[in-house]
């Protein structure tokens, strides 16, 4: 059963990983540095939250998963309100210090939240459920405010869910989830990875790893899918699956779907003994996002670092 990671370890991993990325690709410094810093803050926060949040009422899950419904979709997030507020308060300074361009927007969100004009739990619920009325209603808004609010909701919810997800992972693993969206929060994957060989006590031909897992953009849950499976259209193409990669970068690639033109970055963990902080790895592949989008493919999920303009 997955357990919540220790923030200090995650921090070390992110630092070592981003140092490695920048040594290889200094051109990514402007992107990798601020997000790596933000991820470290998120990890610290997740650990904090983990100590605050009680266990989730698991019996409410029922048969959701076996019916193909993610655990946290369509349920009330009122029980997360406090955690979300806490998360926002904790992350806002880091956001402002890393991204001066949006300081005013964040300030305004902070004010509204303090005044009780903004309920992050409602916004989060709607964000996952597919509605965005809460954001629209907060009038009058500028485009930057609106986008920043989306960013804030995404960021805080992600921090909270990342601390929740490990306790739900075992339940999700029980059933053979064969969808392209996350069994826990319903979000699309940010990146996929090919697994390292398993460390089993078996002494004979244990298999070389290479199983493909999708890594959720929101809650960080990893779930197993077939190698040639497209998360967007959920089709398998065992005869024409495609990927592309840079010539000298083993183990880093972008899988593209011949059916629906979506793409997903992928890291092959068999090719590296580097720590596998997948969010940081995804940021470190921003150059592949550029390429994929120039070729006319669409990302599974929009993130700031794969949205260039």
């Amino acid at each position, binding site marked *: 059963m997955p357990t919540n990671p220790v923030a200090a370890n995650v921090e070390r991993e992110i630092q070592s990983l981003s140092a490695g990325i920048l040594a290889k*690709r200094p051109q990514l410094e402007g992107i990798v540095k601020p997000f790596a810093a933000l991820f470290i803050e998120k990890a610290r926060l997740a650990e904090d939250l983990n100590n605050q949040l009680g266990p989730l009422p698991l019996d409410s899950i029922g048969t959701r998963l076996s019916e193909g419904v993610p655990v946290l979709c369509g349920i009330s997030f009122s029980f997360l309100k406090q955690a979300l507020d806490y998360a926002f308060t904790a992350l806002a300074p880091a956001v402002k210090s890393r991204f001066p361009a*949006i300081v005013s927007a964040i300030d305004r969100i902070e004010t509204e939240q303090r005044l009780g004009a903004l309920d992050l739990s409602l916004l989060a619920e709607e964000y996952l459920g597919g509605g965005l009325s809460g954001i629209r209603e907060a009038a009058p808004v500028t485009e930057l405010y609106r986008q920043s609010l989306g960013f804030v*909701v995404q960021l805080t919810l992600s921090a909270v869910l990342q601390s929740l997800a490990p306790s739900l992972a075992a339940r999700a693993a029980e059933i053979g989830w064969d969808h392209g969206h996350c069994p826990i929060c319903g979000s699309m994957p940010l990146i996929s990875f090919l697994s390292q060989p398993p460390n089993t006590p078996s002494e004979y031909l244990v298999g070389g790893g290479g*199983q493909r897992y999708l890594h959720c953009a929101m809650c960080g849950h990893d779930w197993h899918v077939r190698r040639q499976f497209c998360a967007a259209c959920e089709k398998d193409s065992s005869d024409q699956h495609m990927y592309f990669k840079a010539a000298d970068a083993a183990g880093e690639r972008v899988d593209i779907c011949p059916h629906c033109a979506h793409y997903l970055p992928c890291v092959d963990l068999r090719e590296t003994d580097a720590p596998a902080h997948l969010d940081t790895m995804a940021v470190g592949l921003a150059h592949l996002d*550029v390429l994929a989008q120039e070729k006319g493919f669409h990302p599974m999920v929009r*993130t700031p670092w794969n949205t*260039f*303009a």
Partner: protein
Amino acid sequence: MEVNRREFLKVSGSGVIGLSLLQLGVDVRPVRAYAKALKIEGTKEIVSVCPFCSVSCHIIAHVRGGKLISTEGDPDYPINQGALCAKGASMLSMTRNENRLKKPMYRAPGSAKWEEKTWEWTFEQIASRVKKVRDKDLIQKDASGRTVNRLESLFFIGTSHADNEECAAAHQMVRGLGIVHVDHQART
């Protein structure tokens, strides 16, 4: 309860909400320039089956520009789960090796060498030899006057290296010709 996953896509996939690097004040020119300079390789992943023992381990072939560039065990196949033995792992050199036969060839009686031929010539030559023998040797009635329609003077042997579809074609052809000397690796 009905939750339409397309809805999630709309939110998280189409980017209605969220900031761009530009809005965040990040200069994207270096990464664009870097990406532009990269040498990009497009590769296909195609699932095949190892041609050796009868475990039939699945192999993922990585093919670039029509050329096999690497292979790995298919981690999804429930039996090998990505593992391969030494022979399975040597698929690449096996298909690439210099000793492969690449053209139809003919060796004439008494000749000390092979001659390269076309497929058309080869089929024509073989077909006329088969017909000549069959027309002459086909036993339509046996000594007791029973209809047997068998051809004893030609044989067909092989092969467990063929696909099921090819085996079916081979069997149909062989019985159509009347051949009864039929065998293959099932006996060795």
